[in-house]
């Protein structure tokens, strides 16, 4: 098990390396970082000085080596915008993203288990069809639109919840629901189809034939087998939430996490900050991936870990 985890972590390093290299290639080689980061009116002298200061005037291979060296030391330079180490800024904003994503995923998992199970137990029934349609609707709605709708209905019209920033528990409600609903839709569909498959398995029939009560055949025999694909999907959703939806939801609700930070970095052309954010997110993604793989083995002893 330890050897497996170590191997996975090494693979993770490859991923992180890959991601940051891509960013490097795109920003330095294809784009022009100097032009990107300085305002239009900058004079040529200012551009040259800037380039020299950040090392952009040196040959690409040298830049790459420097880049790697900095990477290993977690030195992402100073944010152009705030004139502080970029990594520090990112780490400051990280906890807020964690709380949002954590709450959102939690809500999504509870909802999807309830809906998916209810559907799977009576496939083809009216309840099932309603659940399926609701799930499909949920996962078809773009998060940003859902957020804005919720703001309009619950924030503006009804005035129940605040619509931006943080502070009270009330501030968390709308963003959490916005994040959770599409995820719940996708997870519910997966729970439903996996459970339907599992309920049809021969070993579940055998359990019934053994006289096991229905609750046990569903809750123990079917559910445990269904856990593997569902946990996989939940893990991916968590990753996508961290790496993507957080950006959208945080932007709509002005929730000061790293997603919000990323967008501000984009609008301020702050390449340093962006690189730091991408790196941190890549690390998070790798950590979650390793955690999922380890969770597999705990659930299913058959799985060949390579």
């Amino acid at each position, binding site marked *: 098990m330890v050897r497996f985890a170590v191997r996975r972590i090494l693979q993770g390093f490859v991923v992180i390396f890959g991601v940051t290299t891509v960013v490097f290639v795109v920003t330095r080689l294809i784009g022009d970082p100097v032009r990107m980061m300085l305002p239009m009116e900058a004079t040529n002298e200012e551009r040259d000085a800037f380039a020299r200061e950040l090392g952009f005037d040196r040959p690409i291979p040298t830049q790459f080596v420097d880049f790697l060296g900095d990477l290993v030391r977690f030195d992402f330079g100073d944010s152009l915008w705030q004139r502080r180490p970029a990594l520090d800024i990112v780490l400051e904003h990280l906890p807020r993203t964690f709380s949002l994503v954590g709450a959102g995923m939690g809500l999504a998992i509870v909802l999807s288990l309830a809906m998916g199970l209810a559907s799977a137990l009576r496939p083809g029934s009216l309840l099932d069809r309603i659940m399926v349609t609701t799930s499909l609707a949920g996962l078809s709605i773009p998060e940003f639109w859902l957020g804005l709708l919720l703001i309009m209905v619950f924030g503006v019209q009804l005035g129940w919840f605040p619509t931006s920033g943080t502070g009270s528990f009330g501030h968390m409600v709308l963003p959490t629901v916005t994040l959770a609903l599409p995820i719940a839709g996708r997870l519910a569909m997966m729970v439903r189809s996996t459970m339907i498959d599992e309920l049809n*398995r021969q*070993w579940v029939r055998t359990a019934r*034939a053994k*006289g096991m009560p229905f609750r046990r055949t569903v809750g123990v025999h079917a559910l*445990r*087998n269904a856990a593997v694909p569902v946990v996989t999907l939940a893990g991916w959703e968590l990753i996508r939430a961290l790496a993507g939806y957080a950006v959208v939801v945080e932007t709509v609700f002005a929730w000061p996490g790293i997603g919000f930070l990323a967008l501000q970095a984009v609008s301020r052309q702050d390449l340093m900050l962006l690189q730091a954010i991408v790196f941190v997110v890549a690390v998070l993604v790798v950590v979650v991936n390793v955690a999922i793989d380890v969770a597999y083995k705990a659930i*299913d002893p*058959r799985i060949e870990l390579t």
Partner: protein
Amino acid sequence: MTARTERPGHLLEVDDLHVEFITRRGVAQAVRGVSLHVDAGETVGLVGESGSGKSVTSTAILGMVELPGRIVSGDVRWRGESMVNGPGAARRAAAVRGKEISVVFQDPMTSLNPLFTVGAQIAEVLRFHLGMSRRDASNRAVELLDLVGIPNPRARARQHPHEFSGGMRQRALIAMALACEPKLLIADEPTTALDVTIQAQILELLTELQAALGLAVLLITHDLGVVAGLCHRVEVMYAGRLVERASTRDLFGTPQHPYSAGLLASTPRLDERLARLVAIDGVPPDPRAPAPGCAFEPRCSISGHRCTEEDPELVTFAAGRAVACWERAAGGGADRD
């Protein structure tokens, strides 16, 4: 408490059972009026080809018929009490399943849950039906594995199904079925998925267990060789109906129904030399469109005029012998039961 039937003493009684399946292309009559019984200690073979309705019958006996299938009419009675009709029938069926009536299904590869240990799955039955403690159930599970001839039972009980071979899995399934000392064991094609040599071992095991425990066995199979080795008597099914009932010796010696005769003829014997393999011409009928007459008629070599018009009933013409055939019944001196 339901009224006792006119025939006290039958352990299991199936009474004019009709089961149908609703499909997009029509309603399939899988079981069309099957009546049979099993008494304590006897081994009854239910023989038929794929699609004859024999597996559906066993599913119905256990009360496990699910969509798209359903029981249309008829009854299944265990020790005189119905498990299909009337209040409390479903509850009775659930209480009896796994405890008084057990099943061993056809496919040992998928009948065990891959995520749990074999021992745990056997212990589950003991803990649930008999209320045993975890430790007692565990130990009993090991004993049961030993009973069915699995070497190193204590170590094996802690393993997962994928670590067992096919034959061993089947033995484990038998152990699981016997855990609560049932009165009736339904074995649905218990050897079909196994190699020939393993088949023989499993059959021998079943014979031993039956003698030792006084089990009644309902053996469902398409393989006459298995029947010959194990069963006291045989019920032959074709297209959802019973076409012949006889003791094993009588069936093999003097089969009455043309289908039974055809089945026997098509099984090559070691001591015969054959120029070609014998098969029964034709194919079984479509269960969605049962013909008005005898279902076997299109393939029958002795069919007469009445056979295309009326479906023959199962008629008892001697002690323990019955046949559903106009031609045979006419010749054999039928007595309506």
